[in-house]
């Protein structure tokens, strides 16, 4: 367990804590990583099979032409949004408790987006033609703008993760060896912590934090256009833009909480990641949960009140018929139980908040399924009702992607510090000797 002791400097203890995931993993973690690797490999194999056999191996059909891949796209990019937003807002508002959280938030934003952005390609029957999207763009297609928004968001997220990392790499350089030392030295950009460097870094981080908020909002509203710009009952809704944005932040904050709780527990970072940081995030999560519940209520009541036949049909399918079990499971496990777990003092522990976050993640995945699939099962023409349940190939690819996200996050913090050392030092006045000036005598 890494805690500040009198025998070591406080600064070195913080560096050790930030580099804790880089230590040799125990047997349990190695086993977990191997299992995740097998799931990822199975997912890749399933995708290769789909690539060779065609999109017909999925359960997608003439009626339900968007299925779990679209759900994955919306859900995974939504997960990313929470991380980026948490980091950006806490930076801009100068929240002192953000220190131990921002790096994990930015890391989750990056890996979930990197995996989520693959799904438009995975969904293509002919992915080898994806380049034509750029060489022959259809400027009036929402799908093109969706890709542009996702790529822009990916760009900002990569930079929001890497720019604040510069001083940490310089600080941690003396505490690592081998290829990490060479990598840290190369990426730390001669950081010595001069006031000018601090000013330049601070300005760039603030600019990126300001940028990432509207860009992330745009990504999710443009993503919602793929649904709401159609005339399909259940999708054609003016609330879809904010509905998607709130869903993204709600589930994204849950991912950040879960990742923080797990890292805190597994690597014994309790001394550095305070419980109050997790608790404040949980308060944010339940506020967003209440808001999302309200939006869901609004969507249902407005459609139900107008009573347009086709929309009512979809509504009944979700609330009372084919998909009612899924919907009420979402309400219970995705909204009510997490809110109660955080609201009740006895369960407002890191474990309770972790469980609440996991339920939100699962519940919101289910909700995205309910947004995408049921409206498609009700045809615009004719009476033939569509049926869809993801096929084995789709399930394997989705499981592979989820496992891949976790593995990528593990890999990311096997390479880079999991805590923002420089930021924590700046926020906590006790580390007055930070940042250090590494010996750069041999750099040319």
């Amino acid at each position, binding site marked *: 367990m890494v805690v500040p002791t009198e025998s070591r400097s406080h600064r070195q203890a913080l560096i050790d804590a930030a580099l804790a995931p880089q230590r040799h993993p125990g047997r349990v973690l190695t086993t977990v990583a191997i299992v995740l690797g097998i799931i990822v490999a199975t997912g890749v194999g399933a995708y290769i099979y789909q690539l060779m056999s065609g999109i017909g191996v999925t359960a997608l059909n003439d009626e339900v032409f968007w299925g779990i891949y679209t759900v994955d796209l919306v859900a995974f990019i939504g997960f990313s949004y929470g991380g980026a937003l948490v980091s950006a807002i806490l930076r801009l508002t100068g929240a002192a408790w953000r220190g131990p959280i921002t790096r994990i938030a930015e890391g989750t934003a990056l890996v979930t987006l990197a995996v989520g952005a693959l799904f438009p390609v995975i969904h293509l029957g002919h992915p080898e033609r994806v380049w034509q999207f750029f060489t022959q763009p259809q400027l009036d297609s929402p799908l093109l*703008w969706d890709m542009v928004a996702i790529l822009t968001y990916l760009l*900002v997220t990569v930079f929001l993760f890497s720019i604040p990392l510069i001083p940490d790499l310089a600080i941690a350089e003396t505490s690592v060896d081998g290829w990490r030392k060479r990598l840290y030295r190369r990426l730390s950009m*001669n*950081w010595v912590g001069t006031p000018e*460097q601090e000013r*330049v870094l601070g*300005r760039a981080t603030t600019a*990126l934090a300001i*940028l990432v908020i509207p860009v992330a909002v745009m990504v999710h509203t443009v993503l919602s256009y793929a649904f709401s710009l159609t005339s399909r009952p259940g999708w054609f809704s003016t609330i879809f833009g904010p509905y998607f944005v709130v869903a993204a932040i709600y589930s994204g904050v849950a991912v950040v909480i879960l990742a923080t709780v797990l890292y805190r527990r597994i690597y014994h970072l309790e001394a550095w990641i305070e419980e109050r940081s997790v608790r404040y995030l949980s308060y944010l999560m339940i506020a967003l949960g209440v808001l999302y519940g309200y939006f869901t209520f609004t969507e249902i009541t407005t459609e139900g009140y107008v009573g347009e036949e086709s929309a009512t049909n979809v509504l009944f399918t979700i609330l009372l018929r084919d998909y009612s079990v899924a919907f009420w499971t979402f309400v219970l496990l995705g909204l009510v139980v997490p809110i109660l777990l955080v609201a009740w003092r006895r369960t407002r522990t890191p474990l309770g908040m972790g469980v609440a976050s996991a339920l939100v993640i699962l519940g919101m995945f289910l909700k995205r399924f309910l947004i995408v699939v049921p409206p498609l099962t009700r045809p615009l023409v004719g009476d033939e009702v569509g049926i869809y349940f993801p096929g084995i190939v789709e399930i394997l690819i989705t499981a592979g992607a989820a496992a891949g996200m976790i593995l990528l996050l593990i890999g990311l913090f096997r390479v880079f510090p999991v805590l923002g050392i420089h930021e924590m030092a700046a926020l906590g006045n006790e580390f007055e000797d930070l940042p250090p*000036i590494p010996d750069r005598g041999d750099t040319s």
Partner: protein
Amino acid sequence: MIASRGFALSLTVAVLGLSLARPALAQEEPASAEPATIELRLIVPPNPDVPPQFVATVRDADGNAMPGIAVEFNRELEFLGTKRTALLGVGTTDVGGAARLVVLPRQEQATVIASVTGSDVSAGIEATFPEDRVDTFFDPEHEHGLLTPLREVMPPVIAAVVALLWIFIIGLVVTTVRRIKRLGHREEGQIA
């Protein structure tokens, strides 16, 4: 957009062509000789209420009209930069060797190819329909509405904004990294 309209055209003409052309089909026995040539024409009747039609005339090597021959009418399309053919419909030649396909054109220009089913005999034309016969999807009341110019203007405007945003983001990061690196060097020199 163009491709989807093309497919809409395909569906429309396929249905119309088969239903309208049926009375004209002769109940002839298929000819024993092999089809040698096919000639494709576009006929636009002067009466605007009568839709245009493609007429493909099949003849044998001696120039005799061949009845009872199945003819496929395809339209050439470009979809995402790739040439495709979309089946418009199938007709059977009458006693005069002519198979017909009635169309409701959605665009002024179309490249149509008629081919004898199961053989290499084919012919194509670049058909140009009179403007007043082209049935666009646009409602004339809304075609010149307030938002129509935006449809043309906004995509390039948004593209320009996105390009500027990308330039700004990449510029910001490159400048930041270079300045941090340069300031570090200077400090290093000063310390030394």
